[in-house]
């Protein structure tokens, strides 16, 4: 019977061992092996090799992926003029993240890309968020009805032109803002509220500081005491956005804030 078939080749034997033969040919090779013990031993040895290699290296699949590699699955950090698609791509990747510290990769190839803990300014932002969002009567110092005054005041005290990003398209309305003490000087806090919700959980704060020192960083995500924080440094400013909202929601807001900041005051 096998005599009627095409001769069994070396390739057939490999393909058989690898499960890459289908249909009629599989049956033909099987029949061949039944009567050719040498080839059968070869095929068995090849299949053993495959099993052995899988046994050796498959455990790597279950290892936690090192952070530096997680970071490397994202593009370079946001930079002025760097192209909006890079940011967009970064954000879409952020949605995959489960743990804290999922962000765009820092520019320096050698530097660790993810801080295990929040940097000081992001931590202060989270605390300031937690302190002021439950406020019923005075969540802000200057309310949104006086946005012009708020912006003028904060710009003067921050010694830099400030503005309140507009987030209506994302469902957030400005409630107002306040000045807070930072590590060394004043910082600005803008407060927003989801238009379709009430209570502390509906609030989101944007914290802007000049104490982060110039070195642009990637977007990063962290969590402190039930508050999610999305933060980055761009130009002379450090930005931190805090809310109870999830990471993907914060990513959308951060993207909008980043874009508006990029366009300048």
């Amino acid at each position, binding site marked *: 019977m096998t005599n009627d078939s095409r001769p069994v080749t070396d390739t057939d034997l490999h393909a058989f061992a690898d499960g890459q033969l289908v249909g009629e040919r599989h049956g033909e090779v099987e029949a061949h092996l039944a009567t050719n013990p040498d080839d059968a031993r070869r095929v068995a040895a090849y299949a053993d*090799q495959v099993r052995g290699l899988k046994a050796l290296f498959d455990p790597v699949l279950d290892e936690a*992926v090192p952070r530096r590699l997680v970071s490397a699955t994202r593009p370079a950090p946001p930079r002025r003029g760097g192209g909006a698609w890079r940011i967009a791509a970064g954000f879409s990747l952020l949605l995959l993240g489960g743990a804290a510290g999922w962000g765009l990769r820092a520019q320096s190839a050698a530097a660790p890309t993810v801080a295990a803990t929040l940097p000081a300014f992001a931590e202060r932002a989270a605390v300031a968020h937690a302190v002021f969002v439950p406020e019923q009567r005075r969540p802000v110092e200057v309310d949104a009805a006086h946005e012009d005054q708020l912006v003028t005041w904060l710009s003067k005290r921050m010694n830099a032109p400030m503005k309140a990003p507009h987030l209506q398209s994302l469902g957030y309305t400005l409630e107002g803002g306040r000045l807070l003490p930072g590590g060394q000087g004043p910082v600005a806090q803008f407060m927003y509220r989801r238009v379709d919700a009430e209570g502390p959980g509906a609030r989101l704060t944007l914290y802007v500081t000049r104490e982060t020192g110039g070195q642009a960083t990637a977007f990063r995500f962290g969590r402190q005491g039930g508050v999610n924080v999305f933060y980055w440094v761009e130009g002379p400013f450090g930005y931190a956005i805090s809310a109870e909202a999830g990471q993907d929601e914060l990513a959308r807001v951060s993207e909008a804030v980043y874009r508006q900041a990029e366009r300048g005051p």
Partner: protein
Amino acid sequence: MNPDDRQLLDWVPRLRRYARALAGNREDADDLVQDTLERAWSRASLWRGVADMRAWLFGIMHNLHVDGVRRPRVPTVALGDGEGEADRVAVPPTQGERLAVVDLQAALDRLPLEQKEVLLLVALEDMAYAEVAVALGIPVGTVMSRLSRGRERLRTLMQEGRPGPVHLKVVK
């Protein structure tokens, strides 16, 4: 941009597995994966045109590894003489399955790179031969001859290893 940017992360465990088998130790393997990911990002504009993301990514890794083997970034010094006896521990061949697996690692390390690559892509990734050809940029016929030689050599090495003491490589 497009859905592929999400997929890059999904490939990491498999890239690591292959790199570990290629490079032999964790650090070098992860360096190779990181270089691969960075190279992939630097060519992200091409993703739309990539029909087979897996072959493309493993192809990048192949190129980087070949370059790296030619020009090691960090000069390395072989310990011991010849076969690297210094970092191997002789053990009696009585430890069954696990030993056979470690033995296989030692045999794998003695394969020429070009045979090792083909064998690993087929065995670990279950790649079709044509896909291996795409990833490595070689004709399918060459894939088959390398696979054939690699497997036979591995078989011989494994058989040689059976009697007498077997050398267990210390895996870091």
